[in-house]
């Protein structure tokens, strides 16, 4: 089964929910087609990804990356809030965290 068949508008709608993007119906339709074509072409990775090949997550692996436990310069509250869409002077301000049904 090719990805074009597997990837339905409902799947794209679900993914958009997970990614927190309020896609329009037009965007969902367009993306369903485009992503199907892209997935068909990138599926080929499985052709050579046999069980004996280990995965690489980092091109030049480093381990135990620590620094000395010495306080450095950090952002002030003012600096941290400077780019925020809304704040009360000491905290980021947002709308309701929970919806009515929650």
């Amino acid at each position, binding site marked *: 089964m090719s990805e074009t068949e597997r990837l339905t508008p409902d799947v794209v709608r679900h993914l*958009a929910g997970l990614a927190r993007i*309020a896609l329009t119906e037009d965007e969902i339709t367009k*993306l369903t087609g485009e992503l199907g074509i892209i997935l068909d072409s990138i599926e080929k990775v499985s052709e050579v990804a046999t069980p004996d090949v280990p995965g690489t997550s980092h091109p030049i692996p480093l381990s135990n990356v620590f620094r000395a436990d010495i306080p450095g310069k950090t952002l002030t509250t003012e600096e941290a809030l400077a780019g925020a869409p809304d704040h009360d002077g000491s905290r980021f301000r*947002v*709308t309701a965290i929970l919806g009515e049904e929650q």
Partner: protein
Amino acid sequence: MTTTDLTRLTAAQLGEKITAGEVSSVEVTQAHLDRISAVDGDVHAFLHINEKALETAAATDAARKNGENVGPLAGVPIAIKDVLCTLGMPSTAGSRILEGWVPPYDATVVARLRDAGLVLLGKTNMDEFAMGSSTEHSAFGPTHNPWDLERIPGGSGGGSAAAVAAFEAPVALGSDTGGSIRQPAAVTGSVGVKPTYGGVSRYGAIALASSLDQVGPVSRTVLDAALVHDIIGGYDPRDSTSLKDEWPSFAEAAREGARQDSLKGLRIGVVKELDAPGFQAGVTQRFHEALALMEGAGAEIVEVSAPNFEYAVAAYYLILPAEASSNLAKFDSVRFGLRVNPVGGGTVEDVMAATREAGFGAEVKRRIILGTYALSAGYYDAYYGSAQKVRTLIQRDFAKAFSQADVLVSPAAPTTAFKLGEKLEDPLAMYLNDVTTIPANLAGIPGMGLPMGLAPEDGLPVGIQLMAPAHADDRLYRLGATLERMLESRWGSPLLNSAPDLAKSEMFGAESGAL
């Protein structure tokens, strides 16, 4: 010396003249600001011009007069890709979601440039969050190729490449996740280097795909790239992937290379899979001429095979969206950037979804959804897991190739600059532009793009890519400088001297077949 002449000089030459007191940093900076005023309406390389550029230049001049030792590029202007955080200047990464956002800190590379006395000219245009090969995915309109304003300047760092190619800046910074420094260099006739992964700090570079991203220099000459690399490179405790290598002077490597008459003893590997029949004829022709030139200078040309490169683009378009979908989760309408309140209000999640819908462009949405899919339960092993295995296979291909050759070469891009709009509606065709550059990112090795002539069929620049083993960036500068000198002596002048003079006319046709 007229101000036009100053914009034609290299960063190395400008640094020397400023040091010798022949010209001030203020004069040099003003000349570049004037050039930007004259041509950037057509080119659109810049998203923001630093209002304090002349002030910084004056401070550098004063420091020099006081006898302070200010380094080889002190007073020289530089353009900064908008993916890098800069104090006092907006840093948008080409996205609406960060429009007008001024970061509370400098990227390490930017701080190092300031410490070395360079003058930041402004921020350059790019595909949104560095997703693209043409700058057409910038939320603020595309950049135009200085060789032909109707064509793309490459991407994502088309703004930085166009800025140096249009003589608006002698040098610039870029970032390269799958070719965003090297491919724009190829299509604009400029030079760009993606360093070894971890060789240059990523702190303050707005992350696209953290295991692939690398910041690097953009310039018109190999030596200038090396001088910038020397300043920005080296260990940074703020980047946990930063390497603690003691790097040699890349400028010294470039100078050595430029003096070198012979390439005797150097084994140059041609990657069979990247010398492909589907490439534009003029690209293949110039590439084989460059090989012959290097062979004539004593290099041993060997063919190497990298059978798994065939899977590189596919693996890249799984790994990149997966990492990007995670990295871009921070744009949540809470701490920085845009906030859009949906009609009738809603919870913070509704606000987040409305903000991301309004703030992200089509390509960003496409890749976030693709990455979310590739990482979702049931598909993770088949997609992301398999792509990571391909990454191992590509590293093995490189290891084998570098046992047969000191440096690998390929065309830096499969075609010359295409027309704006030509591939915008075909994402897959756009993705294939990076077929030559992606393998280096997957393996973490360094690569350089530099001009190798004009394609006879359209008179547009074509680039060659040099690749070296991880940690051996100096080989790129040594060979790059030798090849640059040999090519320029064949051409009679640097390639960019043949580019149209934008200040005279905005409509022109590229000269064809001269080289």
